[in-house]
């Protein structure tokens, strides 16, 4: 019910969808639609933000934004793909506090830039490691070497 309404409201922005069962749904969306869709989920439909997972893949950088609709146990993932060379996306932290830390963390570990973030300082390392090194990228090896 909630999903059908969402798909109707954002029919153009949803590129594809996938569901394992009625409790697990992923919507592949246009990165530009992330803020309006998240706002709709959070403010209108009462979804709870869980966390975001960044991935470094051959396609570039991907982020799954995990939302939960607790009355029915639904977990809805909003998936965006970002550019390999210049990964950036609008921040959600101006809307709610919950994304503040995880966006800073993804910025620090993956080098993804979050536009208009209120405070994009390092969360974990407070300047203790080399700038421009992103340990969670697949090109980074645990011995400190960076693959070309």
């Amino acid at each position, binding site marked *: 019910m909630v999903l059908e309404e969402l798909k109707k409201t954002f029919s153009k922005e949803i590129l594809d969808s996938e569901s*394992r069962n009625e*409790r*697990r749904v992923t919507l592949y969306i246009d990165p530009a639609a992330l803020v309006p869709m998240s706002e709709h989920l*959070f403010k209108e439909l009462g979804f*709870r*933000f*869980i*966390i975001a*997972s*960044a*991935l470094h893949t051959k396609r570039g950088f991907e982020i*799954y934004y*995990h939302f*939960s609709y*607790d*009355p*029915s*146990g639904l*977990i809805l*993932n909003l998936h965006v793909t970002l550019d390999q060379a210049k990964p950036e996306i609008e921040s959600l932290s101006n809307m*709610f*506090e*919950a994304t*503040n*830390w*995880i966006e800073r*963390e993804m910025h620090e*570990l993956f080098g993804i830039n979050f536009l208009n973030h209120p405070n994009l300082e390092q*969360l*974990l*390392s*407070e*300047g*203790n*490691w*080399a700038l421009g*090194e992103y*340990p*969670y990228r697949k090109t980074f090896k*645990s011995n*400190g*070497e960076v693959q070309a």
Partner: protein
Amino acid sequence: MSKQTLIPVGPYHPLQEEPELFKLYCDGEIVKDVKWETGYNHRGIEKLAEKKSYDEVFFLVERICGICSTSHPFAFANSVEEIVGVEIPDRAKYIRSIIGELERLHSHLLWVGLAGHFLGYNTVFMWAWKYREPVLDLFEMITGNRNSYAMFKVGGVRRDIENQKIPAIEEVLSLVKKKTDMLVGAVMDDPVIHARTKGVGILTKQDILDFAAVGPTARASGVDIDVRRDDPYAAYPLVNWKVITAEAGDVFAKAQVRLLEMYESISIIDQCLVGLKKEKEGETEVKIKHIPEGYGTGHAEAPRGEVYHFVVSDGSNSPARHKIRAPSYTNIATFKKSCVGQTISDATISLAAVDPCYCCTERLAVALDRTSGRRIMNAKEIIEHSAELTNKLLQHE
């Protein structure tokens, strides 16, 4: 603007069991702002998980947290089993829930004790930790370990709880139930605890939604969420129990929720033991030969709230990506709301009220040398670096 004084709590402070630095900016006795520094506990667990086989990851994630050491394997098992699409046997479901609830019991007892200690009420601390011991002994009997039980695997559990052990479990539970009555009386009816915790560190419903806080922290502010009921897993749909909530959102409400949850845990374990007797001994797992390509979401209700694991599989023997979100990650951020405007003495119990677990929160980084950008620091350098940071803090503020 009047001059603000910085009161540092941490990174190594008698009040905190783990390293974390809170900077309380105070005007007289009143906290005006709070900032925190994390990063003292980084172990790079998400990256490490990409190098281990699915079986080994269980042992790794179990070591994220020393207190709720089964909640991470629980969520990880749920996510991998979702990728595989497998249903585990009922006996394994009961065993998983028994372990999960025993853990909630000892974790809540630990918190009640610490909360008493933070308030200067050490009798509660002594009592709570004394009666936590039999629960840990029970774990030793069931799993071989007081903590880090290594009970979970993809498709079931590693060890059975033989029916002959059930009477011993029931005996400990009846003792813990009796002592919980005593603790509830000691905490809920004590005028000093009322005075110290009522109206202190209030989080409103909107604060909880904004910060996406979970677990007893959310339930104490009237946000009725619990993964065990909302997205049922293991044996939780097979037993009767209720989600405990409170409305006030203060420290007292959080204590109330945790204490009453202990009764629910005891009731869940009792019902699981009845269920266990009906199932055939030894039927504790489904053999899984291959983890297919795909992604899976697993969450579990840990003592502190929802633990969330997201696993991406590329069809190989190790996860291609493993994202972990521990409950304290969202709960700790609420300090910004709960501490500001309080006196310094109340700020400490407000910090403790969400039962923060820093090990869980900081699982993330790899330490590199600042000058070369390559090497991992040796012990001497870490000590020097620590002294340097302390000096910087003292000079700076």
